[in-house]
């Protein structure tokens, strides 16, 4: 009898248990997809940042080969190069020099030595799922170096669902590149992904006379490779990447050609790794804990400068390690608030630091009076706290506010506030207004360099800081079109410059600009993207900063034919670049390059043929005065062929 009485209650509780779990399931899925939308930047026009997403699949169709070539498609981003062959990014008129943060699958690679990232320039597009490029400050989440931009390369390893791939590419430069990406399901919720690539290049570009009057070829040879591993399960993930770039020094470390018989170069080796644990306290509170270890090594050997008594040889070897741990809490505990709290600790130390310079005819006599690049035992403890809150003030308005505090044991602390408002005026139109402060910690080279007459550090240097105000307008009349127009003004203070070999703090620079993007699908077969950007970069004497293009433009067009063939057309324009005051040459001429690719896919095989710089335009990156009169000449027309197998 009692059982019969209890039976309805049991049924009701079972029914409600089912309802409860179905509802919980739906709520959990809504959180999950909101995370997907944020992670993939699908809702970027509703977020407090100016981000461009470059998708790997589209980059391949346009014949783009690697990371830096892809970055040239971002509004406001210009690619340039130093004489040593180190590629340089110019974000909104700001030369990179440690002011752009590069992350691979969320792990930062900038080192403490110089903040350099250039050795990842050749990362192949076949291993990239997408590149997220934030223009402007990103210090709130990323700390130092995230001053003029943040680049996050999401590899296919990190993607939850993707096919396995083998690829091979050859070009007329000549260069050859091959690699693979492989996924292995370890269980229902865990997987292992591996990738690897190798690049061989023997590119040499004919050039006019160097600073010694010698005519020759730039050495842009390369033997680069990388291996990456990514393990993920429901709560735990581990990633690791080894990358080595062995490259020629292009136009020379001292802006003089090396002799053809004895080509040397630089080797940059990077190992990064991160273990991360993610879980939730309850439906409203999710946390993650990370532990990471990074290593960086650089070795350079070069004939620095020919002299009448023999060539000057330069050899350096440097290594540093860093370990970090970070905890973040994402909370939607309070209605209409999305709160992020974070704490991070990092320890970095220079482990090896050696400099050897001598005349080839007297190798036992150093020509520079120092055996180290920087003071020995450079080290740094960094402790960081950050908080960010996004508040929904009704359906139409979000307000975001955040603050980060970083404390460095070697130079002091930095505060990075952020404030923003996003207004959804109508369904088709959003406005964003953002203010951010960011900073760049002085590098160890700037603090501790010990090369008299060439590079002397100042341990009392403070961080460079930037204050940026940005206004964004986003118009989306339908799902097929997006038009964005952004305006910004930025000031960089406490600039660190090297003047008469001494690193010192010096004044301010100002940057004003506008960026426009139009992205559209013209029918199911056609995608077009147009970007246009303008920047004025001036110093505190109101003089234009040299070697920066005021105007950049790109048009990319992808057409899909019905029988498996796709066409990718890319037009890039860079305007003239003014010279430094001490440079009597005319402004460096602007240029426009046209690339065309055709891609054919049959079942699992894809072949892509590309011609770059179809009209064989002569163009160059700017070289300093009294070095290369015709600047750093770039390659003319080149032909590329790629084969990709998906399995």
């Amino acid at each position, binding site marked *: 009898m009692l059982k019969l009485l209890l039976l309805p209650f049991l049924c009701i509780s079972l029914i409600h248990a089912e309802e409860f779990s179905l*509802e919980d399931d739906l709520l959990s899925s*809504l959180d999950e997809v909101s995370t997907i939308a944020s992670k993939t930047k*699908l809702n970027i026009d509703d977020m407090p940042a100016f981000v461009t997403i470059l998708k790997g699949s589209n980059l391949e169709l346009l014949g783009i080969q690697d990371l830096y070539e892809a970055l040239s498609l971002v509004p406001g981003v210009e690619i340039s190069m130093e004489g040593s062959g180190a590629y340089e990014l110019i974000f909104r008129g700001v030369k990179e020099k440690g002011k752009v943060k590069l992350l691979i699958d969320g792990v930062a690679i900038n080192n403490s030595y110089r903040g350099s990232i250039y050795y990842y320039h050749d990362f192949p597009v076949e291993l990239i799922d997408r590149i997220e490029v934030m223009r402007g400050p990103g210090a709130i989440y990323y700390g130092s170096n995230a001053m003029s931009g943040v680049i996050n390369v999401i590899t296919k390893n990190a993607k939850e*669902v993707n096919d396995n791939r083998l690829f091979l590419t050859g070009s007329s430069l000549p260069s050859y590149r091959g690699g693979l990406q492989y996924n292995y399901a370890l269980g229902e919720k865990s997987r292992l992904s591996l990738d690897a690539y190798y690049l061989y290049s023997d590119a040499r570009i004919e050039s006019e006379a160097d600073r010694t009057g010698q005519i020759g070829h730039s050495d842009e040879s390369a033997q680069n490779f990388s291996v990456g591993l990514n393990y993920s399960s429901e709560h735990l993930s581990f990633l690791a990447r080894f990358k080595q770039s062995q490259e020629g020094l292009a136009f020379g470390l001292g802006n003089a050609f090396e002799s053809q018989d004895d080509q040397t170069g630089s080797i940059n080796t990077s190992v990064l790794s991160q273990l991360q644990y993610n879980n939730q306290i309850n439906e409203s509170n999710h946390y993650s804990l990370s532990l990471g270890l990074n290593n960086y090594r650089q070795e350079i050997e070069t004939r620095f400068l020919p002299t009448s008594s023999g060539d000057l040889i330069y050899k350096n070897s440097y290594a540093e390690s860093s370990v970090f741990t970070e905890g973040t809490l994402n909370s939607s505990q309070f209605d209409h608030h999305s709160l992020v709290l974070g704490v991070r600790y990092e320890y970095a130390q220079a482990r090896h630091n050696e400099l050897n310079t001598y005349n080839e005819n007297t190798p036992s006599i150093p020509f520079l009076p120092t055996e180290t690049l920087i003071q020995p035992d450079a080290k740094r403890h960094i402790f960081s706290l950050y908080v960010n809150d996004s508040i929904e003030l009704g359906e139409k308005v979000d307000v975001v506010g955040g603050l980060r505090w970083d404390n460095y044991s070697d130079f002091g602390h930095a505060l990075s506030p952020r404030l923003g408002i996003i207004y959804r005026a109508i369904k088709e139109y959003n406005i964003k207004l953002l203010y951010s402060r960011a900073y760049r910690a002085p590098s160890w080279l700037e603090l501790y360099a010990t090369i008299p007459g060439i590079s002397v550090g100042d341990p009392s240097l403070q961080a460079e800081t930037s204050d940026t105000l940005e206004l964004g307008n986003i118009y989306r009349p339908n*799902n*097929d079109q997006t038009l964005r127009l952004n305006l910004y003004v930025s000031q960089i203070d406490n600039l660190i410059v090297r003047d008469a070999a001494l690193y010192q703090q010096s004044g301010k620079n100002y940057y004003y600009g506008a960026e426009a993007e139009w992205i559209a699908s013209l029918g199911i077969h*056609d995608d077009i993207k147009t970007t246009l950007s303008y920047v004025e970069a001036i110093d505190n004497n109101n003089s234009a900063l040299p070697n920066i293009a005021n105007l950049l433009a790109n048009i990319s067009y992808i057409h899909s034919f*019905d029988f498996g063939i796709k066409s990718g057309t890319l037009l890039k324009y860079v305007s003239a670049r003014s010279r430094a005051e001490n440079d009597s040459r005319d402004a460096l001429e602007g240029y426009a390059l046209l690339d065309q690719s055709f891609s054919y896919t049959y079942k699992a095989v894809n072949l892509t043929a590309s011609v770059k710089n179809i*009209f064989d*335009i002569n163009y160059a990156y700017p070289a300093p005065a009294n070095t290369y009169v015709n600047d750093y000449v770039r390659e003319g027309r080149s032909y590329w062929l790629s084969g990709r197998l998906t399995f």
Partner: protein
Amino acid sequence: MAKWKVDILIKLITLLLLLSSMTFAQGMKEELLQIHATLIPKLLMMDYDIDKKIHNDTIKITVVYESSAQKEQAQHLQKYIHAKYPQGINNKKIDLNFIPYSQLKNDKDSTLYYLLHTSHKEISKAVTLANHRAIITFCYDQEDLQYGVMLSIKVTNKVKPLINVEALKEASITLRPLLLKVAELYYHSTSFMEFMIYDQQTLYNV
């Protein structure tokens, strides 16, 4: 730069600007398909009568397309659904089926029609067929809700289901209250007075 090269570049730019005046149609975003793949099976479970729409313990999602290019792009939906729900959901298998709008009348036993964007005439025909067969409709492009499709997804700073209240009422479909609480309700009608008719009681009893 040589004059003739400048001329070609100007012509290219002019051509592209002319192209900009053409009517647009849809490319599909893989990330959005991933979100749809995650949510659709869960949304189906919110229908009180879902068991009547499932045959042979299999949830059959029929992707209705206009062109082969659309079909090719929509394959990602299948990939993501199978990755997310390899064992199905609530002991029901999930199968995907692809069918062009022109062949939809021959379809059988579907649980949901996933409608890819096309002309409003085709969408309306598909909706009428679905309502007649008591099949739930979901559209990739939320603009198609205005033609009577029942469900879609809206992505802003958060992701929310979009529910076409009128369409659900017309098809006599009843949803669990939670979905109505978390979703954004879509009203095609612009009349304020008609809006007032849809009071709380009516909403929960659609």
